[in-house]
């Protein structure tokens, strides 16, 4: 989807340059989410680049107590992205890391604290960026399904992502959105928590998939791939007939891609 060659330099310069923070999970497990994000951003009028020097935002190190590794990765990410007008990521958790935690992590580093704060101020989770910054009000997609939307915790509580995805999903023709009981509850992923405390993590996700199934949905949507791998893995093991997908795929109308976990 390269830009049309007839486009003039002037119209290009008016479009915001967006650096896409792909996230390490999307890079490895589900690149189609990254490409869906690119499509949505370009449709909204952005110029999208994905810096090749990005790796991971450092959250695994940060949450494991390895503060100095987290600081190094934060600085690397800041250097890679600070030249853009905006940094956008298809993950509330990585977005929260840049927006909320980088300034905290680097507040005592004189060379970096200001840079961390300015990066934080222009970093957004994908769907909230589309709605709140680019003013997107609808998508031109048809997707007949009964869908539950799971609010991934970091996006919900660190970035206030709640209404934006529902707003856009509601414009999809054929898609009915249903709400899960106690919808603010965690899915039990929590990064390394899911493998350090697998029994507890399993109990939490089993409770969540039970509540999801109780809605009678056949599609489960969320905005964070970590949570989605957890939910899809549990739903797959339980043999439930529920497709699991990232919100970007659905908004971009990528119904041709198999759902997460390959089941449909």
């Amino acid at each position: 989807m390269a830009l049309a060659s007839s486009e003039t330099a002037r119209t290009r310069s008016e479009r915001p340059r967006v650096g896409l923070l792909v996230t390490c999970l999307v890079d490895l497990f589900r690149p189609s989410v990254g490409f869906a994000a690119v499509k949505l951003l370009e449709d909204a009028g952005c110029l999208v680049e994905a810096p090749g020097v990005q790796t991971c935002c450092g959250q695994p190190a940060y949450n494991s107590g390895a503060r100095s590794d987290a600081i190094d990765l934060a600085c690397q990410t800041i250097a890679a992205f600070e030249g853009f007008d905006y940094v956008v990521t298809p993950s509330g958790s990585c977005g929260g890391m840049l927006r909320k935690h980088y300034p905290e992590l680097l507040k005592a580093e004189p060379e970096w604290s200001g840079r961390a704060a300015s990066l934080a101020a222009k970093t957004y989770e994908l769907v909230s960026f589309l709605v709140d910054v680019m003013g997107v009000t609808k998508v031109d997609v048809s997707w007949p399904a009964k869908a539950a939307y799971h609010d991934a915790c970091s996006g919900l509580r660190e970035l206030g992502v709640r209404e934006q995805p529902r707003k856009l999903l509601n414009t999809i023709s054929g898609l009915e959105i249903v709400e899960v009981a106690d919808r603010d509850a965690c899915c039990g992923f929590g990064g390394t928590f899911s493998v350090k405390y697998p029994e507890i993590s399993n109990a939490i996700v089993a409770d969540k998939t039970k509540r999801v199934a109780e809605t009678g949905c056949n599609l489960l949507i969320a905005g964070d791939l970590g949570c989605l791998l957890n939910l899809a893995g549990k739903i797959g093991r339980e043999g439930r007939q529920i497709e699991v997908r990232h919100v970007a795929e659905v908004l971009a109308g990528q119904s041709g891609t198999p759902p997460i976990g390959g089941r449909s």
Partner: protein
Amino acid sequence: MKPTSAAFKEQATRALDDSDLQTALGRMRTHYVGSITSARERLPEFEALRDAARDIKNHTLAHLDLYLEELERKVTEAGGYVHWATTAAEARTLIETICRRANARTVTKGKSMISEEIALNAHLEKAGFKVVETDLGEYLIQIRNEPPSHIIGPAVHLTRAQIEADFRRHHKHLPAGRNITEPVALVDEARQVLRQQFITADVGITGANFLIAETGTTVIVTNEGNGDLTQILPRIHIVLATIEKVVPTLEDVSTILRVLARSATGQEISNYTTFSTGPRRSGDPDGPTEYHLVLLDGGRTEILASEFREALRCIRCGACMDHCPVYHAVGGHAYGWVYPGPIGAVMTPALIGIQQARHLPSASSFCGRCEDVCPMRIPLPKMLRYWREHDHALARRSDLSQRALRLWAWLAQRPAAYHRASRVGLGLMRLVSGPRGLPHWLPFTKGWTRHRDFPAPEKGGTFHAQWAKRGRRTS
């Protein structure tokens, strides 16, 4: 009580297999989450009150020494005695001494988490006193010889059927054929058994939700009325509290009370909010003739000087555990000491040492709901992360997960090598993936795949490889 937090993992696994516990936890979650949310939503100024409550406590903690001295002065002026204890052992001895001097035989108790923290009951019983818990939940765990599983609902882990069985076992003097299947019958029976104790008690011990510096008043917030009977009927009233419970004024308490009951039980105000200032004055119709306030430091001064200071704002409402997915899954006993849930995972390492409690801050998905519901805006996830940093610094470098983390961090700081390794890793993952995704023998996947599939990566290579292939801008 002796902490068993080091065995958190095993205790959690047992809790997950305990069907009675799971029933009780399911009921508790449904009840608390709904009623707390609606109580908050009914009060338009709730968010502003949280800010005000936080500011009051921050101010108090910044001038704690001054307010404690004022409190001591005012309690003394009102005719009470103030006793300072640095350690749990000192507090126990002080209380024992007061009971001995009074020639006490029976000691009744209102609900007090500090008393649990310093294991007061065991100490007093060993010293020969009869100790009776009068809060229904505390009474239940006393007859079961268990620690509390929740800071405001100590027996929230029990089902009604378990309580009935305990009463039948413990109240042998009552007719065996009596009908106590209904909750109201259970409460009536407890009331009947406890009533006699209130009257015969020589000493009543309560905790305190707040200590008011300007008036020398201690405050308890309760629903059963047992606390009032505990502190009014016996000759001697002992209040046991830690130093961070002080607030400057009556006005301040009024502000914090408005967020406390709503966050604790979803009530606008609890059934009883009782203010006690000194002993019975001449002309008072009732009240104790002696009033003692035992002020315990118990490690709080150290916390005050640390990065965990904000945890001292806690007013013990329990909202963090009521909304915690880990607490919902395993309940309070798995945490292995007095304070469970997110606030417990912050306080326990501070009070018993991180070496013994290292699992507690780790066993969190960092969902952040605790911070969201905390009326005092304690940044609980941030504090759990601080503990993880302490734990990380103490961990052996040879530890397998530590080595994996170091290798990953090293690689992630070398983008070219990282992307090459990702491509190779992805190729291998796709090669070994079956219909259920990744196999369980890969490093670190076993814990995951025991209960869940690990979805196989998509076809086509990493995002960055595909992006470069399409000739897209990588800057």
